């Protein structure tokens, strides 16, 4: 394939790709995300490939491995298009029947999703309750493409935004992103356009951009799903950003525990380079941009921007104070713009549809959609993309299907280990950056861990504190030593050795870490403890005063749930 040298070349290529595709042909799309791999989707995919040949349907049916469409609970997921049939929990033995049904234009009833509320079978993907209330602007395309094929991405309008952006002035792009109201999806929610502008205006010839794909929050995997399932959407966002900022070198820092994400992104970069969408003289415009992947080493702290940059420089991942912003002095002391994967994936959508369209979605202070990973004691585990401002209740009950095994909802932890728990009384809260912060938690990268009434909140606080203690880099005193003692105190409480003064002492240490830690990981580390004390103080007191774990989790003469 020769490099594309102009916008016209891109158009011609797109036409030739779509022209070669037979719209009458059915496509069997099989989720090949890491989640479904645990269900054995690879053998399901191989079985489909064999079976289609066996039944002589190769000219009528294509088999396409796709990225994660989000409904992990019911994997392996199989969609038949254009009919829009949605099969779930598909195993290799089911494959001949599914293929035969396509030949006969019928449906395999037993593999359809059953709506728990009505007991009815749901045939079409769009009618599955899990998807109905979602608005899948970002993750929706995962299900439409084979992520290892750049042609698939081009066929659904991929790189249109890049072509459009390269015809704009960099300032216009920044203005558009500012007007869209897009805020960083990685945690703090800083306005993306302003960050780009500061980096663009910084006085230095050399500037860097970085995509943070070091998704370290336990229970959060939306970034993995995007990098695995639609890597070009992230790339396209980055190339647009680089052009707007005036950067010619970018890095993608991917968590090493995500081997498939690393592999798919490598393929995507190579393909984009072959097409001339990355590298020198992109689409003949004279703009150069290259992108390197670096794998993380397994350190939660490297999600923090300065620690990530230290690690990119070949050093240990220690953060530094940010009195001078990284947008002015970041990687190698040069102006550096770092955004999270999901933030980058929002960029092409904004450029394609315009800021006015985009900013209609969401709430006053939080625009667009957000992907949440809904996990824990929840009926429908999976990735959920909803407009900002959707209530917790809608996410947990309407989309998530509520709590399984007939148990009761107790709390939901948002914002990962640095976030806090939100109790039942606050379920009507619309979810956006500001509301979550007000509630004592935070957006973080979008993890939502649902806990039922058999979850002990002191044990959860201990769990998060232990996690953070293990992930603290150890540079600053309050985070390292404070978490050490907090863990010891919490362990004591869960083992029945709690003292009356412990709650006050925990609060005191929490306050010091919050005020004095060097970085945000440290400063937010006390959140799980603070929020569980705030909302579930009685559970702490039961452990300490009565030596009882009301949820029956801790090994101290546990009392059963009523």
């Amino acid at each position, binding site marked *: 394939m020769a490099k594309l040298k102009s916008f016209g070349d891109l158009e011609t290529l797109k036409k030739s790709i779509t022209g070669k595709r037979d719209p009458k042909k059915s496509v069997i799309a099989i989720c090949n995300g890491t989640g479904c791999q645990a269900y054995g989707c690879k053998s399901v995919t191989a079985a489909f490939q064999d079976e289609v040949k066996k039944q002589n349907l190769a000219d009528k049916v294509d088999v396409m491995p796709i990225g994660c469409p989000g409904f992990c609970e019911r994997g392996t997921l199989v969609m038949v298009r254009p009919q829009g049939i949605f099969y779930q929990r598909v195993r290799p033995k089911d494959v001949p029947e599914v293929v035969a049904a396509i030949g006969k234009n019928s449906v395999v009833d037993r593999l359809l999703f059953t709506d728990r509320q009505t007991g009815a079978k749901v045939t079409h993907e769009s009618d599955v309750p899990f998807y109905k209330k979602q608005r899948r602007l970002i993750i929706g395309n995962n299900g439409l493409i084979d992520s290892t094929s750049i042609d698939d991405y081009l066929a659904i309008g991929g790189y249109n935004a890049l072509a459009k952006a390269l015809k704009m002035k960099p300032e216009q792009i920044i203005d558009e992103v500012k007007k869209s109201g897009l805020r960083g999806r990685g945690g703090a929610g800083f306005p993306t356009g302003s960050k780009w502008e500061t980096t663009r205006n910084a006085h230095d010839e050399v500037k860097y951009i970085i995509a943070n794909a070091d998704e370290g929050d336990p229970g959060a995997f939306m970034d993995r799903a995007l990098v695995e399932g639609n890597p070009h959407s992230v790339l396209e966002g980055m190339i647009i950003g680089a052009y707007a900022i005036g950067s010619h070198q970018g890095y993608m820092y991917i968590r090493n525990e995500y081997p498939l994400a690393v592999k798919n992104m490598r393929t995507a970069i190579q393909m984009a380079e072959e097409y001339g969408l990355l590298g020198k003289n992109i689409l003949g415009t004279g703009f150069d941009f290259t992108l390197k992947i670096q794998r993380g080493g397994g*350190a939660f*702290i490297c999600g923090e921007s300065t620690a990530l940059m230290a690690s990119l420089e070949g050093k*240990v991942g220690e953060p*530094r*104070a940010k*009195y001078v912003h990284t947008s002015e002095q970041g990687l190698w002391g040069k102006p550096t713009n770092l955004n999270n994967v999901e933030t980058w994936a929002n960029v092409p959508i904004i450029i394609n549809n315009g800021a006015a369209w985009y900013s209609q979605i969401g709430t006053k202070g939080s625009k667009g959609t957000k992907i949440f990973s809904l996990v824990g004691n929840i009926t429908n585990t999976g990735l959920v993309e909803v407009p900002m401002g959707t209530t917790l209740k809608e996410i947990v009950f309407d989309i998530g299907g509520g709590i399984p095994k007939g148990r009761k909802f107790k709390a939901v932890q948002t914002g990962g280990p640095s976030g806090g728990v939100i109790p039942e009384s606050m379920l009507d809260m619309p979810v956006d950056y500001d509301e979550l912060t007000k509630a004592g938690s935070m957006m973080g990268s979008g993890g939502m861990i649902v806990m039922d009434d058999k979850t002990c909140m002191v044990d959860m606080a201990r769990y998060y504190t232990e996690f953070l*203690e*293990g*992930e*603290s*880099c*150890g*540079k*600053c*005193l*309050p985070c*390292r*030593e*404070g*978490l*050490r*003692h907090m863990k*010891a105190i919490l362990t004591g409480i869960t083992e029945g050795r709690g003292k009356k*003064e412990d709650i006050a*002492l925990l609060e*005191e*240490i929490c*306050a*010091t870490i919050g*005020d*004095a*830690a*060097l970085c945000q990981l440290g400063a937010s580390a006390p959140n799980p403890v603070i929020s569980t004390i705030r909302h579930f103080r009685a559970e702490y007191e039961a452990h300490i005063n009565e030596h009882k774990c009301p949820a029956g989790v801790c090994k101290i003469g546990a009392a059963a749930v009523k």
Partner: protein
Amino acid sequence: MVKITINGRNINAPEGVTVLHAARENNINIPTLCENEAVAPYGACRLCLVEIKTAKGRQRLVTSCLYQVEEGLTVQTNTERIQKIRKMLIELLLARCPDSDVIQQMAKEHGVTGGRLTPQTGNNKCILCANCARTCEEVVGVSAISLSKRGVERELTTPFGEDNSDDCIGCGSCSYSCPTGAITMEDKNGTRKITWPHNEMKFKMKKCSVCGQFWAPVKQVEYVAKTSGTPVTDYDICPNCRE
């Protein structure tokens, strides 16, 4: 020069200096353990936190060893909030290094008695401020020691935690830079012994050909000769006799 106030006092400070530096120049004491003017600021001990208000009216806590002075800055070094933070930090230090005289003295000065947190053993007075490792890297240029592992397991060690590691030249800068006495150096009978919290090293000393005093580790002399491109024989006589 920029105009700032610290604890209500009007001060002129040169541009680019840190708040801590400006305070020191004006005899205003801000406690710190990890700050060392010979190396780049690090900001790990957090004792030097102060409250500031910028000319624009933004109020917050900052690390005075890292934060640079700016026109119209108002600094408070000893508010109730700061005192509370410092006390807890010192309590944490005391639990980490109960046997350090420096920490005990600091606790006394700040009215911290301890006893609430379980004291640790085995840290051997080391508070992990990295003054030694930073001096070894930035001043000496040798990088013989570093902080290894992470979080609560962090330790100041030689590579692979070995005694008598290859890289150390025995200059002893680490022991001079240590604020808590966790690194000691002893010269005796022509041998220098450096003891770090978890390792130790012994060095043969060079004898002055004039006065007969042992004046520097042989390895350090060789290192200096090599890096300065001078013959080792230049160092047969100690600096005192050379004068």
